[in-house]
């Protein structure tokens, strides 16, 4: 499991990850999430400029067998979104922490990150789920 829960990220209990890059946050879904979903076939993301709220849905990810909302780990303004996923949603299965990042936000309250799980806590949480 070690390689499937990178140490340098923070996690939500809804299986999103967040990475701090300078003043911005990059957000995606975890290896465990894509595994549970199965073949991802569609990703719907917010427009650049939209506001997202911590804990609130910001998009949708669909697989052949399930549809799931994406929940924002932190609040802020969307500064970029990964349009490549629209044409190639399979990338979510192939590289959830890398090329399949979903949105990049300018956070409004970095303190929100403190409430998230670190890698060890998330790994424990996933093991409990299984």
């Amino acid at each position: 499991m070690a390689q499937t829960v990178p140490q340098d990220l923070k996690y939500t209990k809804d299986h999103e990850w967040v990475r701090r890059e300078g003043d911005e946050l990059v957000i995606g879904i975890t290896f465990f999430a894509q595994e549970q979903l199965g073949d991802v076939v569609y990703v719907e993301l917010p427009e650049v400029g939209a506001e997202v709220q911590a804990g609130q849905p910001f998009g949708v990810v669909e697989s052949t067998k399930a549809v799931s909302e994406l929940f924002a780990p932190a609040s802020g303004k969307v500064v970029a979104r990964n349009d490549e996923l629209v044409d190639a949603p399979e990338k979510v299965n192939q590289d959830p922490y890398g090329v399949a990042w979903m949105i990049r936000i300018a956070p409004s309250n970095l303190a929100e990150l403190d409430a998230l799980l670190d890698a060890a806590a998330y790994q424990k949480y996933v093991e409990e789920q299984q």
Partner: protein
Amino acid sequence: MSQEFFPNTSPGTRGLVYREPLIFERSVPGRSGASLPSAGVPETDPADEIPAELLRGPIEHFPSNSENEVVRHYVRLSQTNHSIDTGFYPLGSCTMKYNPKVNEWAARLPGFANAHPYLPPEQLQGVLELMWNLQNLLSEIGGFAATSLQPAAGAHGELAGLMIIRAYHLDRHGTPRKKVLIPDSAHGTNPASAALLGYQAVELPSNEKGMLEPEVVARAMDEDVAALMVTNPNTLGIFETHIKEIAEIVHAKGGLVYGDGANMNAILGVARPGDLGIDVMHYNLHKTFSTPHGGGGPGAGPVSVAAALEPYLPRPVVVKEGDAFRLDFDRPKSIGKLRTFWGNFGMMVRAYTYILELGREGLRRTAELAVLNAQYLRKLLEADWHVAYENPSLHEVIFTDRNLKETGVTTMDVAKALIDHGFHPPTVYFPLVVSGALMIEPTETESKETLEAFAAAMKAIYERAKTDPEGLKRAPEKPVVERLDEARAARKPVLRWTPDFEIPF
């Protein structure tokens, strides 16, 4: 019982199975399968009257084929289908029983097939009498005061039922109320229908026996609750033994109980939902009353109600005055119309034919043998397969893939492997509350040796899962296609033929 009776399937289940192109790829310009009368009247030109920009000639890319070529095309396509007339179809919750041939004959009688819905009642006495009789038969079978035959399908009947409940609350209480209680084992249409009418769906947990407990309902019940939706027997095949108490709890707070009639086949002539406190219920004529599923419709979903709800039924209803029948549109409290015309009449003819052929004893016998078959199959399978709920079920039973956990073989693999044994898979991964569910409903029209052959196939699959799991994952290998790439279909949707269509066949 001898297995030789059920020879194994050969690759493809018939003499030869053809890979068939699309009709658009078969086309040869200049051919035609049409037999047209000449106009027999002056050959006028539409352009005299209709603006040119609204007219068009023959449609580009429409195919051209002779009748015999068209017939061969569709016969070949039909041969790649499984069907109830070719083999066993143990789909839980779908009640895939035999579709009697006399039903098809009846529905095709010219007086039925050619009856126009807008003829005056004096030219429609036969079709109206049939509908009136069927309304009454369904009311009696379910224990209700009145029935509307209008809804086109089960989900449509369910929508009608909830609309009736909404209209009742508005009329009686001045508010539609806000919430609908739905057990976690319910069919997905229940919350979808509730949401469409602006209700908040509140999920109720079932207990470890798969049943709804009165206390759970009592805790959730208040005067904001419009209705409780139940299926009884529920989607786990289990009879809700507390249904009467539950209905009383709901009624005490002014709520109503909606019954999903999906599983009526288990209790025909044995128990009547209307007697158990259920206020509204829809039937599925294509499940309980043998009308064919048609590869995905048409169905029919009549809705029956207790006396207090009769004024809200969709309009019109068939009434009898003296010896004459007519459609009654004058129903001021009705929820309105749900579709064009009066219902899926073609399905009504078949269901009516079926009920009259079975008669009162045949209906009860149907329930008895449906339960007998399900329980017999359960006995044959439970040595190997994990039963989701230990307590007795009625007409269906749910197994899971739990005993195969170590092998990596899943419910989906079992389903596909059954195809190579000549059986349609059971309903899989439903209900959602059961992980890896295999939901089996044999129905009363299957013979003992069919059930035994199915059990033998399940046993063979179980054993192969232990020794050759990878082999199982290649199944099915006998049909005209192998496992299909559903992810590709959804990622890059190709939903029609166009001249650049190029997937090889």
